[in-house]
């Protein structure tokens, strides 16, 4: 091995290490951005080094240089434009789109390698996985963007396809690997490969189409891991270690991440995928209403609270029922120590007796100057980052503002007017007045379903570990 080759390999090794470090830094909100920059820098180095290899080889045709340059410029431009313009809310579908093209690129490398060296296990895997990812990610992206209907789509013959396609892919792969289509570039082989690619693309579509929009983030993460694996296969095909390392890294971390995301949504990955081939969205959560509500984890709540400037706590009867006043005070104190401005909005009839919340909060040692009455709290609500509603229901029910409901005419705490709302209660269950609460299904509301005592102490622990 020449010194040049060795040097390039060493650069690749360094790049791979930087990727690892970059992902490592992404584990904490504090260092995440630095991690991303490091990773990006390493990526630039890797690409540059590869270009040097190309230049050093000196055999590259001008047209190839041109195609490479033009393609890179175009892709970079489009990618940049999309990434710059996209709205916060549309980011997941964009990520999915980028994932699609990444998978596509990996598959195309497989195709290229096939034209040079014929079929090999990595090439076949590359094309299959890359193909599935490409089409699957596009569908996922489309679903989130609303181009493809978000609800699970079950089209006629879907079941047949879900069995037939994998069989076909397996058969074509075996044929290819056993040299069924002649040597490299042999016509039969090309046809087989084209068939394989087509089947893979089709399978990607059939796999994602039946899955409901709510599960899309998990699916995208899974497809992301797929792409990683496809890239690693491309690396095997090209004999390039940095592709192998980076690809495997993404494959594995993507898999773990997929599991974490599914766990956070209380779904199993198997359910989502299998569910995709049959049932639809309803499986997510318990009742239909609970399904419509956005469910949060302790970590989400913790980060939202820790990075807020102003938090209003709205306690209700559930706080008393759970006897969670000490845990609540603890959380509030922790947030205050982090510089968050926390106060408590006490509704006159929260709880079940006059002054119920006062009795509780005093027991927990909440200083009186942290309590705000309803009018003050409502005045400050639009400037409030998070309204943390703990076991309150009727006293934050916006239905009170309209005539005709059991709570009509009662003044309420306008938690719904805060920038975001976190509600801690055990279920979508009713309060004293026995009516539904539309606050819980509002878009800026996240529900943390748990007993208040447990919920609050979990959130406190999460704040401590996440943002220390």
């Amino acid at each position, binding site marked *: 091995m020449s010194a040049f080759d060795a040097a390039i390999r060493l650069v690749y090794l360094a790049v791979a290490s930087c990727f690892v470090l970059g992902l490592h830094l992404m584990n904490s909100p504090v260092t995440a951005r630095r991690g991303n920059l490091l990773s990006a820098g390493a990526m630039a180095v890797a690409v540059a080094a590869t270009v040097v290899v190309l230049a050093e080889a000196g055999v590259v045709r001008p047209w190839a240089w041109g195609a490479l340059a033009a393609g890179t410029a175009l892709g970079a431009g489009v990618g940049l434009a999309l990434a710059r313009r996209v709205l916060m809310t549309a980011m997941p579908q964009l990520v999915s789109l980028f994932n699609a093209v990444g998978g596509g690129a990996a598959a195309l490398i497989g195709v290229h390698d096939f034209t040079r060296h014929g079929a090999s296990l990595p090439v076949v895997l590359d094309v299959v996985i890359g193909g599935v990812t490409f089409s699957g990610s596009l569908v996922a992206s489309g679903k989130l963007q609303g181009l493809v209907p978000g609800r699970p789509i079950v089209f006629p013959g879907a079941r047949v396809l879900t069995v037939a396609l994998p069989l076909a892919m397996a058969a074509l792969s075996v044929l290819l690997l056993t040299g069924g289509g002649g040597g490299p570039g042999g016509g039969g082989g090309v046809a087989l490969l084209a068939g394989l690619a087509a089947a893979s693309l089709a399978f990607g579509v059939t796999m994602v189409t039946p899955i409901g929009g709510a599960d899309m983030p998990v699916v995208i993460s899974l497809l992301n891991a797929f792409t990683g694996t496809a890239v690693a296969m491309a690396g095997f095909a090209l004999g390039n270690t940095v592709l192998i390392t980076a690809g495997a890294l993404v494959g594995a971390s993507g898999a773990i991440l997929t599991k974490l995301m599914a766990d956070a949504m209380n779904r199993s990955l198997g359910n989502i995928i299998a569910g995709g081939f049959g049932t639809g969205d309803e499986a997510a959560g318990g009742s239909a209403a609970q399904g419509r509500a956005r469910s949060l984890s302790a970590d989400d709540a913790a980060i939202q609270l820790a990075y807020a400037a102003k938090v209003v706590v709205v306690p209700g009867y559930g706080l008393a*029922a759970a*006897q969670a006043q000490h845990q609540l005070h603890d959380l509030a104190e922790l947030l205050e120590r982090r510089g968050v401005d926390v106060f408590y909005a006490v509704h006159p009839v929260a709880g*079940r007796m006059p002054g119920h919340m006062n009795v509780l909060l005093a027991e927990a040692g909440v200083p009186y100057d942290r309590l705000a009455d309803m009018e003050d709290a409502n005045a400050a609500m639009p400037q409030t980052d998070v309204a943390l509603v703990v076991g309150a229901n009727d006293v934050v029910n916006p239905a009170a503002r309209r005539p005709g409901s059991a709570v009509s005419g009662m003044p309420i705490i306008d938690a719904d007017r805060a920038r975001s709302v976190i509600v801690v209660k055990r279920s979508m269950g009713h309060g004293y007045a026995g009516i539904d609460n539309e606050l819980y299904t509002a878009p800026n509301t996240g529900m943390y379903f748990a007993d208040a005592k447990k919920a609050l102490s979990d959130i406190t622990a999460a704040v401590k570990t996440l943002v220390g």
Partner: protein
Amino acid sequence: MLSIGIVKETIAGERRVAITPDVVPRLRRAGLRVLVEAGAGAAAWFPDSAYGEAGAEITGADELYGGAEILACVDRPRTDRLRAGRFLIGLLHPDAAYTGELAAAQVTAASLDRVPRTLSAAQAMDALTSQENVAGYRAAVLAAHTYERFFPLLVTAAGTAPPARVLVLGAGVAGLSAIGTARRLGAVVTGYDIRPEARAEIASLGAAVLDLGGEGAGEGGYARTLSEHEQQAQRDELGRQVARHDIVITTARVPGGRPPLLVTETGLKDMRPGSVVIDLACGNVETSRPEETLVTGNGVTVIGAGNLPATMPAAASTAYAHNVCAFLEHVLRDGVPALDRTDEIQAAVIITGGAA
């Protein structure tokens, strides 16, 4: 511009006043002139000067009854002073006879103890709740004052003082308030009620729940009267429980009926000398006499406390004044009562008259 007159209470021991200086500006904003009978608030620590500063006019009784179209009181005023067409607001606890009298006097009378309890929109006018809340707090403080030992557990160099064991019978508004206050002082508190949801509410204050089985939920959030057989079983079991406690506070009522008898004389016999029993409902304890304090032979102090809010007049009056004010704000349109029988609150509260 209509006037509202604040009556000086006449019943003995009634130290509350219907309107306190802090709500006078609110009434004026609602379009009323506020007349205050001289000395009306004195017993509740609200001197006439405070009313004057708040924008009310101090008058004699005659001008008041003569000049004010709206009259605010706590307890029933003397019917003979009321003129036809007046709008009277009070805690009248109306019975048929009294309603008849008022009707005869052609008075439109609103009794705030009739506010529907379970109606969210009416909570601000719910004077029963506000007064019972005072009564419950007061009962716990009175118990601490009367009981000549410590409420909390204290481990000291001069021995360990055990915590007082407090039993609260009836966990409505007053009962819960008493439970909360006694717990604050460090007593070990047990609550008891026959409505099943009251059990969770007792627990939500951190107190223990006494469960004797059986249940007695009635209508409108109130309890029902138990059958004689149920009552006897309850009394027997409660007798045993009472003896295990140092303080018993009873608040059990059923709407329309006599307060149930919960603690019998034999039950008191087994209590320790120095124990205290406070009967808020005036009827839950066999030996209690309204507004009297007795000490039994075995050293148990029994207090018949039918009108505790009147013994904490400053707090009780302030809360009641808010209720009256909220009711007036509900009823007044441009400073004039707009009576409306189809309004759920008015239908319940207005006991005579209906055209102002």
